[in-house]
């Protein structure tokens, strides 16, 4: 998009201004990158207590009708048909070459599938899904719903004082119901590595609901900056950085998101390539990378192997506030993907020593 195009706003735009959010363009939306506390504080506060994130820019939709799960499986290797009521799962939309069109969450709730896709990809995903549906299955975008992420160790205990049902959810569990007249969809999930929830709420009630959440003990607003550093420490991919239409689930180390049944039937887009990669390996793999010292290595930093040859590229990198050091992920040649392998990063033209490292960089604390 060009700068002359107007940015979209989420239903929380005036709340962000009220809270002193620093607004930046992101995926066509004006979003808060941080509040006055700053990214470092917002990040650490989310890990210590709870952060409230506006993620209403993300695409929400529902897939309705008999055979909805089978229809979605035509586009993804995730096991959607095996998803039990009240459960959510992570999946990948693939193109015919096995490249990743987007990553998404799908919940089986209230007799239909509830989908959350990336803001930057919803204009691609929704037409793709709609075009793949048989008669009797329909896709309904939900542009009139906001999405709030309440993340951190104090998140669920706090929310449970309002909505007691959330306390009983386990990681990736979903509760849907009417609370004080509001139809809510709550999943125990998130993008920070912490325990927490994502809450879909009608747009017109979003500000009032967000204020109720901000009034809970330990809850502070957190922006996209902290969201990015939290997900990076948690080793979670950002679409457009770490995965895109050229990367396969095998290269991206996301094979775990493919259903076992699907890997026996090979009945998804790009199955031939993916089967070949699983049998014979890939040229490159996504790995965690820890630069030595304190200097961050950011996206597009070239990665060299021990022999000096160009071996790949950083796809996400920055400073991890909880790790208290630089963290990154990127793609390297397969023979350099083992943990501990010495790499050289060319940061601003200067060599920086680094090693392949296991992810997450900060332990996940999900409510399993």
């Amino acid at each position, binding site marked *: 998009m060009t700068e002359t195009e107007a940015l979209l706003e989420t239903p929380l735009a005036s709340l962000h201004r009220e809270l002193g959010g620093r607004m930046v363009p992101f995926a066509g939306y004006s979003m808060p990158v*941080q509040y006055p506390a*700053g990214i*470092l504080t917002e990040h650490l506060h989310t890990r210590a207590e709870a952060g409230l994130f506006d993620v209403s820019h993300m695409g929400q939709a529902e897939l309705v009708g008999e055979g909805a799960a089978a229809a979605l499986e035509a586009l993804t290797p995730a096991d959607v048909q095996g998803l039990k009521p009240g459960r959510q799962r992570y999946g990948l939309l693939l193109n015919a070459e096995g490249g990743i069109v987007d990553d998404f969450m799908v919940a089986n709730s209230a007799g239909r599938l509830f989908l959350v896709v990336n803001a930057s990809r919803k204009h691609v995903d929704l037409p793709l899904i709609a075009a793949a549906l048989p008669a009797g299955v329909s896709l309904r975008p939900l542009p009139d719903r906001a999405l709030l992420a309440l993340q951190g160790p104090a998140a669920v205990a706090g929310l449970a004082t309002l909505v007691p049902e959330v306390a009983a959810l386990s990681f990736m569990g979903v509760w849907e119901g009417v609370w004080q007249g509001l139809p809510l969809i709550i999943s125990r999930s998130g993008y920070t590595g912490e325990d927490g929830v994502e809450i879909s709420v009608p747009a017109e009630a979003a500000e009032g609901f967000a204020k109720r959440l901000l009034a809970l003990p330990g809850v502070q607003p957190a922006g996209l*900056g902290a969201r990015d*550093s939290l997900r990076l420490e948690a080793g979670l991919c950002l679409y457009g950085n770490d995965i895109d239409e050229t990367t396969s689930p095998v290269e991206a180390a996301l094979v775990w998101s493919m259903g076992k049944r699907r890997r026996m039937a090979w009945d998804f887009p790009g199955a031939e390539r993916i089967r070949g990669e699983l049998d014979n390996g890939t040229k490159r793999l996504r790995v965690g990378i820890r630069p030595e010292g*304190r200097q961050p290595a950011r996206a597009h930093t070239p990665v060299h192997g021990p022999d000096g040859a160009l071996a790949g590229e950083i796809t996400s990198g920055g*400073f991890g506030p909880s790790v208290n050091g*630089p963290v990154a992920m990127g793609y390297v040649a397969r023979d350099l993907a083992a943990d501990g392998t010495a790499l050289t990063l060319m940061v601003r033209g200067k060599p920086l020593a680094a090693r392949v490292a296991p992810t997450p960089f900060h332990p996940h604390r999900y409510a399993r």
Partner: protein
Amino acid sequence: MAEMKYSKDHEWLRLEGGVATVGITDHAQTALGDVVFVELPETGRVVEAGEAVAVVESVKAASDVYAPIAGKVVAVNEALVDNPGTINTEPTGEGWFFKIELAGDLPADLMDEAAYLAFVDTL
């Protein structure tokens, strides 16, 4: 106290006895956010006005710091390496970056405080 001058690259400098102490402005540190890393020039390096001589990185972004005047780097603030957050808390005090011994005249485009604040308002 010596008068502060400001550059369009958001550095401040304080000239005392032919040596200028240089740092980044409060506006610059606010825009950068939490600083987590700084790379300082070598002492003794001879620099041109406008030359990139240091790097400052926040959680979110990396940015060059330019020499606002020509001359020789005579001191660097090594304390920033272990405590880069000082750049946020005391940008015009303990958060200074380096000192340059002025060679020649001050560049004509350096601003006084009022002119700099007016410049920031136009951004």
